[in-house]
């Protein structure tokens, strides 16, 4: 706790970001001095950085610290999301280690960008101030714009980058204008100021809020701001897609949760449009996934629906809403990363194994990857004994406590899940049905992928069978009355 130019700085709260920044800089440095031979080292540094940052976060557990003149906080709204970000960063780097030279882009830039993107996400998660939110969001986005194009030998990757940057900037414009109006209506940038203004909502405030929600909704890929997701997910390199699917959502959800709880203490009636967006997302996401033939696109659509589910946790702003959301986020991260890891395992850094036409009969040829994939899909579908099931249970409970909107959200959640039974069941159905043994049997067996797959599967099962392990963090995550 030192003071700098009259502003008190709590180093422990900033430590994770600093550690990670150090790792990023180190990567760039090593990349300067060494040539491609040391590719593995670069990713290793990143992973170590993530782990180190994670370690520095442990002491922060249970505390809530605000620093930088209240602009940045490390508290219940950031802690778990940061962990998810770090975890997804580590897994992404693991999977990226299979990248080959011909995949384009220098490994150093690639790894460093991933690290900085994660930092951006952590900044978002901790931001208690409109300006910091914007700052973190842009750092995350700018890095991802580039990463999306990092597979540029493939036209799809370039196209993904272009679409992402155009639409992302458009969304940012809404965020900026919305922030401006909120600032105008509340006379300050801190969320507390905005909260004060929320008590007597003026037209200015409401308009600003709407535009702000649009900006965040784009990053969350809530329908109808989701259209970029399928294309960008399909085009980007596999590992980057995995990172997008988890990290971006984690960071944006952190912002959304903080705004919901801090700005709108217990009365979320003003946020009703957000619930409507969630409902549309659950439907569009699941229905859109029905006819997909590309697994990356399919997971894109499914992520749209999954975010819709997670928003249900906020609908009631109940004391347990945050922990419900957090639990489902963790479950979602584990299963999604796991699914991408299985794809990476089969693809083995080469031709991406995203075409669903390649999956029929997989169980007979590669039983264990198929079983793992089935497990992840069952978890996404919310079949019991997986993390996804208990998460859904918590979310449904939150919804039921949230009045008519909550009930509507719950019913939609159930309907969407029924549709998703088909979506995910179809792949399992394919993998386990009789087919002529294909000529090419995916032989990928890389250790990093296996590690990621195993971690995902283990986490999914453990959280599914022993959710109380997670629930131990509930006292910290439960939000008392403001």
């Amino acid at each position, binding site marked *: 706790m030192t003071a700098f130019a009259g502003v008190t700085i709590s180093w422990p709260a900033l430590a994770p970001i600093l550690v990670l920044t150090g790792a990023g800089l180190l990567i760039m440095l090593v990349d300067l001095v060494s040539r491609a031979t040391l590719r593995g080292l670069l990713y290793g540094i990143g992973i170590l950085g993530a782990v180190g940052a994670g370690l520095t976060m442990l002491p922060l557990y249970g505390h809530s610290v605000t620093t930088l003149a209240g602009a940045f906080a490390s508290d219940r709204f950031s802690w778990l999301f940061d962990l998810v970000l770090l975890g997804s960063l580590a897994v992404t780097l693991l999977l990226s280690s299979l990248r080959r030279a011909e995949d384009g882009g220098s490994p150093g830039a690639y790894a460093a960008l991933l690290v900085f993107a994660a930092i951006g996400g952590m900044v978002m998660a901790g931001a208690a101030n409109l300006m910091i939110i914007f700052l973190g969001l842009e750092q995350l986005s700018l890095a991802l714009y580039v990463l999306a194009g990092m597979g540029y030998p493939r036209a799809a990757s370039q196209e993904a980058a272009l679409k992402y940057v155009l639409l992302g900037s458009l969304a940012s414009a809404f965020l900026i204008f919305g922030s401006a109006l909120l600032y105008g209506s509340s006379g300050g940038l801190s969320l507390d100021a905005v909260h004060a203004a929320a008590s007597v909502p003026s*037209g200015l*405030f409401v*308009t600003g809020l709407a535009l702000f*929600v649009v900006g965040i909704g784009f990053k969350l890929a809530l329908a109808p701001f989701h259209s*970029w997701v399928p294309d960008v997910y399909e085009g980007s390199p596999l590992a980057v897609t995995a990172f997008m699917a988890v990290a971006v959502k984690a960071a944006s959800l952190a912002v959304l949760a903080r705004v919901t709880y801090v700005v709108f203490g217990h009365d979320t009636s*003003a946020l009703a449009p957000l619930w409507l967006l969630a409902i549309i997302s659950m439907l569009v996401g699941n229905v859109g996934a029905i006819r997909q033939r590309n697994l990356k696109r399919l997971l894109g659509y499914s992520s749209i629906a999954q975010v819709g589910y997670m928003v249900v946790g906020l609908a009631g702003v109940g004391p347990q809403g945050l922990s419900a959301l957090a639990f489902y986020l963790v479950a979602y991260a584990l299963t999604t990363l796991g699914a991408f890891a299985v794809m990476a395992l089969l693809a083995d850094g080469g031709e991406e194994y995203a075409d669903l036409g390649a999956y029929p009969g997989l169980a007979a040829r590669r039983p264990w990857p198929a079983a793992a994939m089935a497990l992840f899909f069952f978890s996404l579908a919310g079949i019991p004994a997986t993390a996804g099931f208990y998460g859904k249970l918590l979310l449904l409970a939150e919804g039921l406590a949230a009045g008519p909107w909550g009930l509507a959200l719950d019913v939609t959640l159930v309907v969407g899940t029924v549709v998703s039974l088909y979506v995910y069941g179809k792949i399992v159905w394919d993998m386990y049905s009789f087919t002529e043994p294909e000529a090419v049997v995916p032989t990928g067996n890389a250790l990093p992928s296996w590690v990621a797959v195993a971690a995902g599967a283990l986490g999914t099962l453990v959280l599914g069978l022993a959710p109380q392990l997670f629930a131990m963090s509930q006292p910290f995550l439960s939000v008392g009355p403001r």
Partner: protein
Amino acid sequence: MMTDTFAQTAPFTILFLPLLGMLVIAVVGPRVHRAASAAIANLAVLGAFALTVALALDVWHRPPSDQVLTVTYPPAWAAHQQFWAHIPPLTVSFELRIDGLSLAWMLIVTGVGFLIHLYSVGYMLDSRWYRTFFAYMNLFIFAMLLLVMAGNFLWLLVGWGGVGLASYLLIGFDMHRPAAVAAARKALIMNVIGDVGIMLAMFLLFAHFGSLSYKEIFANVTAAGTPALNWIGIWLLLGAVAKSAQLPLHTWLPDAMEGPTPVSALIHAATMVTAGVYLVARAHPIYDHAPAAAQAVAVVGCATAFFAATIGCVQYDIKRVLAYSTMSQIGYMVLAVGVGAYAAGTFHFITHAFFKALLFMAAGIIIHNLGGEQDIRNMGGLARRLPFAFWAFLVGTLALCGVFPFSGFFSKDAILDQLLVLHHPVLWAFGTATAALTAYYMFRLLFMTFFTGGFRGKAQTHAGTVASMSVPVALLIGLALVGGWIVVPGHDGLTPLLRAAFADTGTMAALDHFSGIVSLAALGAGLVGFVAAYLLYERPSGLRPTLRRSLQPVRNLLANAYYVDATYHWLFEVPVLTLASDIARYLDPEAVAGGAAAVARTATAAGDAVRLWEAGYVRRYGLSMLVGVVIVLALFLYLAGGTAALGGR
């Protein structure tokens, strides 16, 4: 006391001997010579018969007060544990009731049953399923014994269903003949209708008496009001009607003649089809207090007796004629028990068992020798070819027609007499008229089979009758002759035996009351029938063809059995089957499953819509975003109190 332990154990031995026989045949049958299984079956029934005789003597030597035994199995459980059902308040134990009534039936079932078993040994020799046949026969004896020995309505129903099964199996014994299969199905389905009737009666009994046991129900039968008892009686009657082939559920019996002849003799003449009579007699305390139901019973019996006889007059299949005559005779019995002349009904059941079994066996000999020929138009002049069969058939006919001093005379006379004693002149008139018809169709049958010129058929008579077939026939000739003499004017040997069973009924008049008018009327009616048959069939004259022409419509009506079958076909069969196949073919696949499929199609279509919108055009994505912005903005403002708020601050 030895006798009591005997009375306790004997019933179960009697009951389970035939079951044991069936099981033994089923298990070891395939491994031993076919004759062995026949022997097992016969011995089982013979043993049951011997024990029954012993038991009967034991019971009838007791004081009347002690002539009704109720034995529960296992005796030890009678107190605390129920053998069948134990769901308070409903408890049903496995109890048997032995009294004059059940003993009478048991004696006939095992006695006549044994004779027919013996007869089958020779008759079925060239059947492929020889062992199976005897197993089924034993199964039937067991079920029938259970039916008449049961001590409560539930076990009665179990036996009731068991005989239904046995009859089903034996009617369809020639399983490759579609006709036999269809006949079997018909018989079982109609019997199930009867079972449902009895079940309904039991529901009501349980509702009003909280029990299904004869003892408890009959003890305080008056506890339930007359209307309730009437309903119970009606539902029981439904069961009786189905089983005893009375109107209107009679159509299965003629078809049942598809079964082998011994089966027709045992099940569809002597024993099973009389179960309805037994049921009414057994439930007499109910009918005694249910006048309407009793009336219905009597009317049904009388109508069946008459109409069946009329149909019998124009049939050409020897076994069908006998079948209709069976229906008619059972009609007599039902009529008797309906008016309360239980002893008379029982008496007629006994004699009928003798002479009808005899007739069927004789017919069996003929069919056997004619290689399966059953149409009397292809017979004739068999008196010389098959003298034994002829004499047997003659005795049976005389007994059936109630000619003095054959057994039928006494029993039929007893019924008609009771009708007058109990003041039912109309029923009596019909009964007597039926006697005329009976004589007519029986002698018509006799003449066409054994006389009327020479043999008209092609089938050659092959190897004569084996001893195992002729011995029982000879025995039955004797029984058909003297069987009725237990009741002769001045001495009633039957009623005392039954008295105890019917102690609680008021209408148990002695059978030794004879009135000349009744007897003469009956004999006269018989004579008329005989003369008619003689003139029409033995004295070829112009009379017959003219009659044929003038009565053609009547003939058609009778030949088609009053079109009852056709009516049922169009009334029930066709609609149900059409509806069923429509459901299975269209409704279920289209409506139920189709509904689900429609939902699936809708979801898929929606999925396509989403894909169509997601066309890859950045600017379209932007547009959709913008639409979203407008919606969200509008909603936010609307919820915040509309545009008014815009001016605020």
